[in-house]
């Protein structure tokens, strides 16, 4: 088990105006490790994608429900960000993770959420249960 240096837990109502709150809060918390501008941009982007997914897909854009964010900073400069919800869950996670897959809910979407999280962070894992919710865990090791 790696030693956790610091931890932040946050829960936000699933309203779209909280997308910027989420990425700003995570970014401010991670900033103590002095990441590069590019690393911080990558993390903000990945958080925004995950929180948007929860708001739009897990809770269907209803503006109700909570999005849970947990950020851990480890001694070796690795960070982990877990974003979870208690929404509808994903029936087929593998399919949902396919690049450009979108459910087509009438809004303009490009189906890049998971692709962006995977590409801009070092690792991504997705756990989901229909009717129970989804948890997305992302890790990134910051440069020394």
């Amino acid at each position: 088990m790696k030693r956790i240096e610091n931890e932040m837990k946050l829960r936000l109502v699933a309203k779209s105006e909280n997308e910027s709150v989420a990425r700003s809060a995570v970014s401010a918390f991670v900033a103590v490790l002095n990441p590069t501008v590019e690393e911080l941009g990558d993390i903000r982007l990945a958080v925004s994608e995950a929180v948007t997914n929860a708001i739009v897909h897990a809770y269907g854009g209803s503006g109700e429900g909570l999005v849970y964010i947990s950020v851990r900073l480890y001694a070796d400069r690795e960070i982990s960000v877990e974003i979870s919800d208690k929404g509808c869950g994903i029936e087929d996670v593998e399919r949902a993770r396919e690049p450009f897959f979108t459910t087509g809910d009438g809004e303009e979407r490009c189906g890049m959420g998971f692709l962006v999280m995977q590409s801009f962070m070092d690792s991504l894992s997705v756990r989901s249960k229909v009717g129970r919710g989804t948890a997305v865990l992302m890790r990134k090791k910051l440069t020394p």
Partner: protein
Amino acid sequence: MNENLSLSYEADVLRVSLLCEVDHHKARQLREAIDRAAFAYRPRVLQLDFTAVRFMDSSGVALILGRSALGEDLGFCVVLSGLAPTARRLLRLSGIEGRRNVTVRP
């Protein structure tokens, strides 16, 4: 008056300067304002200037793809300028630069 963008039109070019973070929360407002202007002016070029944009996620990619599709219907091309490095990487990932009517300026 829209605090999220500013619009100008001259010589067939509709220039839209985006002034806010481009995420899912803002995308609809931006889309509606841009499309209203595109239908009103019927430009040959829609220039989207991202110089003042401090953050963009894949909702921004969807916004650009949607305007590119509208451009195919209405007969305009889309020129993107002022993109920050992270946004450029996002666009490369999306493959948007390969679209016929989209040009990315350095």
